[in-house]
């Protein structure tokens, strides 16, 4: 039985008396709602953080009014604004696909949360192929983006969607290959197991294994994951100076907000994967720090990587479409192939 279900049963013994299917469904619903709430709160926080970070990088203050302390409630106010905004559907759009697309994108991202281990006990679904599951489920998002871009009946949206499809499909390969290097190191696809294999000190984290190969794998993963999450310098699908707003040009109100939610959730997911597979997940860097609970370590590691993503966004210009493809196919992919080979050889020797 799943460990998470056991935790629930220990917590609320009445659940165990229910029929098994009902109990499991209930737990699933609770977890899904919890994940959604987490994504919503993280996005609120993430957008606020990004505004503050960009503001301080650019010699301004950012939001300062709403809520008092450094405008902490600004994004909450924005959310309320988005909720009460008119939901415009372009007249000649494909109405069903148009309305459906944001949820496809969001579902694909949210599904990835299922196998992210937060602590020793808390992992929503402890699949034995967790990493493979994440790689496959997160590539579904591109379908939603294509749907949205196509259904909008807007040429700029179509451009954004096409760019996005090309980009995400291409960058999946370096992402997968760099994760394969980790699979070679740990010998398992189980997310929780990957974390356990890195227990000990800082230096038993995967990133320091087979130095410098695993470290290079992390760099490649990080660059490619920026492209997966559509972040600068790879934010071509929504390149505002070229494509107005890319695939979500026509979206407004809450449907637009769902694209935003998925973008920020995606930022968190790719950072969480890095934290789990390269930085020891919820494990403390040194034994004497074990008194700090696992989720804090995990969140801290992931949020540092989220910060680095924002940092890069507000520093670098954007690549052109052909340069983007060049980077994926002629730089990242061959290098990650080479890394897989090197690590495999090292392991055999």
């Amino acid at each position, binding site marked *: 039985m799943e460990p998470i279900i056991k935790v629930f049963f220990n917590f609320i013994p009445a659940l165990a008396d229910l029929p098994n299917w009902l109990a499991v469904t209930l737990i699933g619903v609770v977890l899904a709602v919890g994940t959604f709430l987490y994504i919503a709160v993280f996005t609120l926080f993430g957008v606020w953080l990004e505004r503050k970070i*960009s503001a301080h*990088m*650019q*010699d*301004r203050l950012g939001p300062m009014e709403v809520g008092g302390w450094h405008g902490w409630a600004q994004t909450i106010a924005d959310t309320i604004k988005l909720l009460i905004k008119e939901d415009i559907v372009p007249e000649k759009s494909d109405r069903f696909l148009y309305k459906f697309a944001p949820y496809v994108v969001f579902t694909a991202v949210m599904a990835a949360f299922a196998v992210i281990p937060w602590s020793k006990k808390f992992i929503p679904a402890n699949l034995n192929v967790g990493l493979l599951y994440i790689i496959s489920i997160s590539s579904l998002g591109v379908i939603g983006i294509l749907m949205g871009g196509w259904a909008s009946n807007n*040429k*700029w949206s179509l*451009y954004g969607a096409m*760019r996005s499809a090309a980009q995400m499909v291409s960058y999946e390969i370096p992402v997968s290959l760099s994760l394969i290097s980790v699979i070679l190191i740990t010998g398992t696809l189980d997310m929780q197991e990957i974390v356990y294999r890195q227990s000990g000190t800082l230096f038993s984290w995967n990133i320091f294994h087979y130095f410098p190969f695993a470290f290079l794998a992390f760099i490649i993963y990080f660059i490619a994951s920026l492209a997966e999450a559509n972040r*600068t*310098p790879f*934010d*071509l699908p929504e*390149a*505002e*100076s*070229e*494509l*107005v707003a890319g695939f979500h040009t026509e979206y407004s109100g809450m449907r637009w907000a769902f694209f935003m939610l998925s973008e920020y959730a995606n930022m968190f997911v790719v950072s969480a994967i890095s934290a789990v597979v390269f930085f020891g997940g919820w494990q403390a860097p040194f034994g004497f720090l074990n008194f700090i609970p696992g989720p804090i370590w995990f969140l801290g590691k992931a949020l540092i990587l989220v910060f680095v993503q924002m940092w890069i966004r*507000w*520093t*670098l*210009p*954007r*690549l*052109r*479409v*052909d*340069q983007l493809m060049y980077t994926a196919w002629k730089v990242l992919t061959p290098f990650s192939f080479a890394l897989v080979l090197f690590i495999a050889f090292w392991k055999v020797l």
Partner: protein
Amino acid sequence: MNKSNLPPSRFELEVPNKLKTEEMTLSMGPQHPSTHGVLQIILKTDGEIIDSADPRIGYLHRCFEKHAENVTWHQVIPYTDRLDYIASMNNNLGYVIGLERMMKLEVNERAEHLRVIVAELNRIASHLIALGTYGLDIGAFTPFLYTFRDRERILDLFEEICGARLLYNYIWVGGVAYDALPGWRDKVLQFCDYFLPKIKEYNDLLTFNKIFIDRTANVGVIPAELAINYGMSGPGLRGSGVPYDLRKIDPYSIYDRFEFDICTGRGEMGTVGDCWDRYWVRVAEMYESVKIIRQACEAMPDGDAKETVPRNIKVPAGEYYMHTESPRGELGYYIISDGGKTANRIKVRSPAYSNLSILSSIAPGVMIADLVAIIGSLDIVLGEIDR
């Protein structure tokens, strides 16, 4: 990038199954984030690659030339502010010097120096906008706010000298509207000291960034001959390696007294005349402007700079073409007077108009992202194009 490096167009390949393919017509603008105003460009694209680009102007037409025929000579000056609204001082200067030459009017030394200082400060402010928005076009947001931070200081100086921050109406026939307050000169010199290290900051952040160079070098190459044929001027022409700067070639005001260089593109990062060169010419010109400002501040005599002629002037009958070097290039005023209180005709030769006209000849074969880079590097101001 030239067309030969690109894969063959879909139309040149055989299309399987007799699928119907056609070029996509795309209306870029008038509401588009990076057309620098209300410019519409009708694009014909083959995927990401542009087959033709056709700029459509006129969305910001405000009848400058007709207005100028119906108001007195002095009342035209505020209208010139609104031509190239981010370099108003330079617009004032060209028109006023034209009138003064028609009237054979001498301007006192202090006013001449003040004019040069404000014109060069305005050139820096204008180039700062060009730099910042160019970064924005390429996708780098932060340099934009850095350049605006420093432009703010120039606007503060202008506010102190004439009360306005954008449309100055400062340079009047026979002098300037207000004399500089005591201490203003020191503030200008302080600004020069503050500003030079900031240029290095932009260079570190944007100019020599690998991605920025990849996006702009070898993109939108304008050979010198083509640039001359299209009547380009200003940084656009100098970027193609032609040392054409009216401040040197046909000095007006007191520019012949100062020492500065004409900056030209040398193709340091790619080909001569690419987007990076045009961008770099602007960066280099800011150094030169600082040089001129420093010399002018040192040489500025005391005295009264206020204009000495009455408001209702009469310009002797005749015609005159006055061209000055505005931040965008050769700004020309062709003034016809019949001796009355109003102009018979004022025609403006707009540098941005000529610079933009080259777009349709260099756009075919580039990508949409490159087109944005090219428009940004031409640094157009629609207020001046449409007038």
